[in-house]
């Protein structure tokens, strides 16, 4: 397992050369990583996020407004950042600060569960792995994103491995836009996650797939839906993944917005 190998390698280094002691920060970092990997919703779905989405593939998180799409995507992003993978977070209609607050909030919840006073340092070490880009909905276009992405990659300012697109409306026709994005994702080897807003008043299409996804279903490798059931929010896989028996009841904790498994 990934986190085991990391622990072994750091402790190996410590044994082989006394000069390379494990600093508290690294130790905490490894602990945090373990914890986050354990909490990683995708691990419960059968692997780490990279294994679920191959480079160039799309994943979608579907839910009604205010249920927790962004929170779940931020957990996926934080997981990548902890594995030292760069995440480009594209937010439509939300200022940079607000998008940044999601990360801070979710991270604080995870770090609070672990305890320890070094969380500030770990947070600082994660920040260089994140780049938030915000667009106004009316001015967002794939060529524009491509231009910005080009600026970042050519100058080696930031080379993303994961792309999070939050706030794109799937109520309008988006096939053309997504197809263009797919080309970019393939070109740069990006794992792309989208938030897809569904509506309470609309009935799902055949196979329980919401209308917003139905038209572009073929472009997505993975789809997860957040379903409020009573006071709980269930994570229901729609496509591309299955829940393992020991993680058959995945829910999003409404107070912390962290994914937890209530089956066991």
């Amino acid at each position, binding site marked *: 397992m990934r986190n085991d190998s990391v622990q072994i390698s750091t402790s190996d280094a410590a044994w082989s050369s006394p000069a390379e002691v494990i*600093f*508290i*920060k690294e130790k905490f970092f490894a602990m945090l990583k373990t914890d986050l990997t354990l909490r990683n919703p995708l691990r419960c779905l059968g692997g780490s996020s990279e294994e679920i989405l191959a480079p160039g593939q799309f994943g979608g998180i579907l839910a009604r407004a205010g249920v927790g799409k962004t929170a779940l995507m931020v957990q996926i992003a934080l997981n990548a950042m902890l594995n030292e993978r760069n995440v480009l977070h594209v937010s439509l209609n*939300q*200022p*940079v*600060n*607000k*998008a*940044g607050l999601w990360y801070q909030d979710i991270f604080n919840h995870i770090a609070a569960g672990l305890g320890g*006073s070094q969380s*500030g340092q770990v947070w*600082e070490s994660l*920040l*260089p792995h994140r*780049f*938030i*880009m*915000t*667009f*106004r909905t009316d*001015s*967002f276009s794939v060529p*524009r994103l491509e231009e*910005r992405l*080009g*600026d*970042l990659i*050519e*100058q*080696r*300012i*930031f080379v993303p491995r994961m792309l999070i697109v939050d706030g794109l409306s799937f109520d309008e026709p988006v096939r053309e836009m997504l197809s263009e994005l797919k080309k970019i994702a393939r070109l740069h080897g990006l794992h792309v996650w989208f938030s897809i807003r569904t509506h309470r008043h609309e009935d799902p299409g055949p196979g329980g797939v919401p209308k917003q996804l139905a038209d572009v279903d073929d472009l997505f490798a993975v789809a997860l839906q957040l379903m409020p059931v009573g006071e709980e929010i269930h994570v229901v896989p729609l496509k591309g993944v299955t829940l393992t028996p020991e993680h058959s009841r995945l829910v999003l904790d409404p107070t912390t917005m962290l994914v937890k498994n209530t089956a066991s």
Partner: protein
Amino acid sequence: MKKNIRNVRNLGISAHIDSGKTTLTERILFYTKRIHAMHDVKGKDGVGAFMDSMELERERGITIASAATFCEWKGHEINIIDTPGHVDFTIEVERSLRVLDGAILVLCAVGGVQSQSITVDQQMRRYKVPCIAFVNKCDRSGANPFRVVDQLKQKLGHQAVAMQLPIGLESDFSGVVDLLEMKAVYFDGEKGETIRVEEIPEGLQELAASKRVELLDAASMFSDELMEALLEEREVGRELVLAALRTAVLTRSLTPVFMGSAYKNKGIQLLLDAVNDLLPCPSEVENTALDMDRDEAPVALSADPAAPLVALAFKLEDRTYGQLTYLRVYQGALGKGDTIVNVRTGRKIKVGRLVRMHADQMEEIDAIPAGYIGALFGVDCASGDTFVAPGLSLTMTSMYVPRPVISLAIHPKDHKAEINMSKALNRFTKEDPTFKTHVNPETNETIISGMGELHLEVYIERMHREYGAEVAAGAPRVAYRETITQRAEFDYLHKKQTGGSGQYGRVCGWMEPTAEADFEFDNQVVGGSIPTQFIAACEKGFRDCMAKGPKMEFPITGVKVVINDGASHAVDSSDMAFQAAARGAFQQGYFKAKPVIQEPVMKVVVETPTAFQGPVMGSLNQRRGMIVGAQDEGALCVIECQVPLAEMFGYSTVLRSLTQGQAQFTMEFLAYKQVPHSIAEELEKKAAENKKKVA
């Protein structure tokens, strides 16, 4: 001086750089007949704005020191503080907000909510200052006041609601629709002094009706009476809506937005009406002081002029006739000939001349009652001092003062310059708590420290202009710090028992990083292994080490020292011996605690046309900047970044050439962060070279 406190407004005008605060103030003074001619900030007549009384302010077109003035509008007395917009002068903004009851947040119709507006808004929130917003520059190309209203909601979290609609925009901007009266208002005459009220132009009627509904909806949340009237579809009167809005503004629950163009003389009179109608009078604002006799328990102050005096000195100025102290009276009244006490020093002072300031002109008065702002001559005090009536022991909460982050060495050209320089420094440090000065004992250089390059530059320029002190400035230096990163134990014995009186002291314990304070000391010694009378000496020994780190001689911060054991000698132990032992223990533990160097990191926000986004990001990246995000705002793009201050010197020139002068940036202190190893090594090398030179 009139005494009806309900008709008094203490008003601040805050905004981003170049949003037109000073121009707006100039117009307000003109319409309230305090001045008889208007001049522009960088006008062709070369006179400069009235409020920019400092020669340097007029030349540069920026406001440096906040100027205080007062005026009258429709039976209300308005005290105005025009505050600087540049982030380096934040202390001036903070100070004025401390003493104000309400504010106008000026926003540019083109630039919208910019980085400095966010800082100013945070400051207002900290001091709970109710505000109304004014979207200025509606005549400029690219103006879009409704986008600004949206930004107020999104970026600042204000419940913003438009009170007006613009009639035409950019070059066609001709007036506003008043959504309360549902009338179009035009500003005629050469200086917009004649107000013409007409019916709303046909094309705007529908929009005006829908915006009025929005306005009434928002206001109705704060008045049951208004809510009922709306539900019953009754006609609602102006007074009813204003009362609801006022309630909301006072609790900072709603921000009414007004529109206009100060430069084109449009919309100012309506804004002044709003100041009277919506912003609080001094008695509506709750002010508290701390009772020094009761362990700093908060005490609510009453704006009653008959109560014992409590006043705060918030600004000092050195005039030809002596020090001028700006005061805000919170309780009681300050009269000529009264005896008052400076709480900090305990000194009694007899009040001499009292004046009311109008930029650099003054008017003699007999008393300053509660709620008013005035000035006092010939009193020696520091900024932030509280004055009270004899017998009281109250102090106003101290103002938040940020620490300086940049310093530079200055050398006077000759002896005369040296004398004048010291006079100037003495005055500036009293006036501005963020400006500090000291003499480096090793190099004998005078070092000045402040909040940014411009901050120090302005003071050097003022030394030259106001005191004739010719000084040469060295390269700016960053205020580095040292701190430790892990726990380390120490066990140090200081022993000198050969000849003369002996010295003996042993100190054991540990040190660890702390984020709580710069220095913490915890005594866990039990059983008297270190006698109680020497504990204070141990603390002093450790504390002395904090001033200069053993690693690079930078000040140390964030260290907690715990002592838990030690030893003493019946004859040879002394305060001195334990101080020396503590110093030795600190040196011993410090290097084991993995010390690192920290540098000030600034939050840099660049606003650039989208076309230059790539080069700008590249330039920030080259400066060890970590780009947090890029926000697309249509034609403009806002890049938020964290950059070490050491890399930001001269950035304005670089940015100007990169973007053909079309981008601007603001910078403010964010946090101290660890410097990368390569830079730390360079610093160590430099420090070693300097040491050699001094030797």
